[in-house]
């Protein structure tokens, strides 16, 4: 089974539109939205809900006012500033609590409860391009890395059960925990970027991360006609790192149009963009068959 993950250093580069197009081109695949912080793929793929589960991750501390004597030990020990004084006693701000259990373990009165924390929910549904696995993180919740890992596991299990060869993921933006989880075990990372100074800067960091994780990467240069000098700089950056640019897509209102209509670009009739995407897809599907790249040396 292969796993292709579409990533971008920052959001708004067209990652989701591109994933939708690839989902259309891939045909038989399980599609997975790992951008749990801004999950948008379902807006294009419009799944019919099949399954819905709560997502729990870690625990949160809650003070039982009936047992608390207000000694303040928990407030002194909490390194995250989550224990706040309130009316002579103490209260825990759930948005600051890291669930580290320190106050729970060290409260002399055993006054701190430690229930599991519900961080969101996840779904599977049928779309016109196959099964979609996606999620909704509770706003303000943490640990989206764990949610990403869970979604990938589900997607792989579905692919296995249905005899499908491919899991296609819309990855998380950034370079932190959720992206690291997105890239873990992937056969190919498709880095989507734009020819802007921030696009190049973010791509550089992302490619470095891929190299460290020994995930093979290729690049899609979106809106390539926006800034010729920056586009050239990105081509050079990729060449220097031995990263193939599999597509150079011009700025085209059809992408916007497709989004407005809730379609993949490849579903709109006669778009020249569709031909470019088809070529890109063939190339990256081939790249995903190759093994892991050589180990990274700083």
């Amino acid at each position, binding site marked *: 089974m292969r796993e292709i993950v579409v990533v971008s*250093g920052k959001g708004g580069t067209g990652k989701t539109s591109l994933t939708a197009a690839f989902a259309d081109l891939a045909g038989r695949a399980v599609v997975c939205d790992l951008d749990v912080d801004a999950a948008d793929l379902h807006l294009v793929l419009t799944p019919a809900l099949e399954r819905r589960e709560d997502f729990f991750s870690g625990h949160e501390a809650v003070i039982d006012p009936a047992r608390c004597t207000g000694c303040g030990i928990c407030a002194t020990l909490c390194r995250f500033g989550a224990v706040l004084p309130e009316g002579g006693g103490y209260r825990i701000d759930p948005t600051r609590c890291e669930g580290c259990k320190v106050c729970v373990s060290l409260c002399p009165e055993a006054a701190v409860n430690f229930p599991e924390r519900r961080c969101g929910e996840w779904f599977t549904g049928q779309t016109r391009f196959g099964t979609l696995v996606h999620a909704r993180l509770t706003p303000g919740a943490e640990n989206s890395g764990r949610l990403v890992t869970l979604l990938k596991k589900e997607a792989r299990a579905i692919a296995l059960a249905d005899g499908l060869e491919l899991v296609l993921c819309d990855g998380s933006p950034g370079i932190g925990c959720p992206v690291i989880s997105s890239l873990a075990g992937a056969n190919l990372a498709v880095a989507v970027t734009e020819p*802007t100074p921030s696009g190049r800067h973010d791509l550089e960091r992302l490619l470095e991360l891929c190299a460290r994780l020994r995930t093979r990467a290729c690049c899609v240069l979106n809106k390539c006609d926006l800034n010729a000098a920056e586009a050239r700089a990105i081509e050079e950056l990729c060449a220097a790192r031995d990263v193939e640019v599999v597509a150079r897509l011009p700025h085209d209102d059809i992408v916007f149009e497709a989004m*407005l209509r809730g379609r993949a670009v490849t579903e709109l009739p006669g778009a020249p963009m569709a031909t470019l995407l088809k070529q890109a897809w063939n190339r990256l599907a081939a790249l995903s068959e190759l093994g892991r790249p050589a180990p990274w040396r700083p």
Partner: protein
Amino acid sequence: MIVAVASGKGGTGKTTVCASLASVWERPAVAVDLDVEEPNLHLFLRPVVRWREAATLETPVADPARCTLCRKCTDLCQFKAVAVLGKRLAVFPEMCHGCGGCLAVCPEGALGVGSRELGSVEGGETRNGHYLAGRLRVGEAMSPPLQRAVKARLASILSRTGGDALLDCPPGVSCPAVNAVRDAHVILLVAEPTPFGIHDFTLALEAFAPLGKPMGVVINRAGHADSTLTRLCAEKGVPVLLEIPYDREIAREYASGGVLAAMNPRMAARFADLRDALPRLIKEAAHA
């Protein structure tokens, strides 16, 4: 006054709005990049960086001579950062959240204080103010502790200068984004009038509303026929303070790292209006 510039998703133009505000700000202000995973504010503000220092997190170091393998620390640790492997206590610093719990519970004093490098904090000056930013080390998974380090720096600068702060926050609605806007007096949400943009904007409102802070909206790439976003803002009672039209010239300016407010006098005037609207918003919220 602390102004947080945030957005439900990336790529909405949050950083250029933050840079533009900084460039028209009249009082002394610190422009702060809290988007430590993808710090881009410097690309627009082009500050002179005067200092840079490593930011670290306290992680435990085990002393095998003292450790009795009692497992008090491994029972406590919620992040699997300490474990007994065979006859030895192993520490996985990259998993550690730095809560200090294991050090507090170890009965043998077998754990000492070590550190993990999170990234760096840097500071300097822009044309008309201070600059401060965090930069997450590639491979480091946790951004909130680095954000805390940047915010601690900011607090010390503000206590010295007494000025304002303009925060470029991470996109999204999870923990790092909420952490970033928490100390602000007013939240400015940058949104796009597209189906994706509206969806993410709704999530952002949901995430930030519980903080009870006044919020305003900047609509970027406005002008497409879709008025859903404007309607939504009216419904939710969040004022639209600025609309930046969708046009190729602006996209180009942005692509070349330009600050929108410096593009032409018309843009500068619009951002000056935005600046003036912020204290009014805070005042109205205080009276409401």
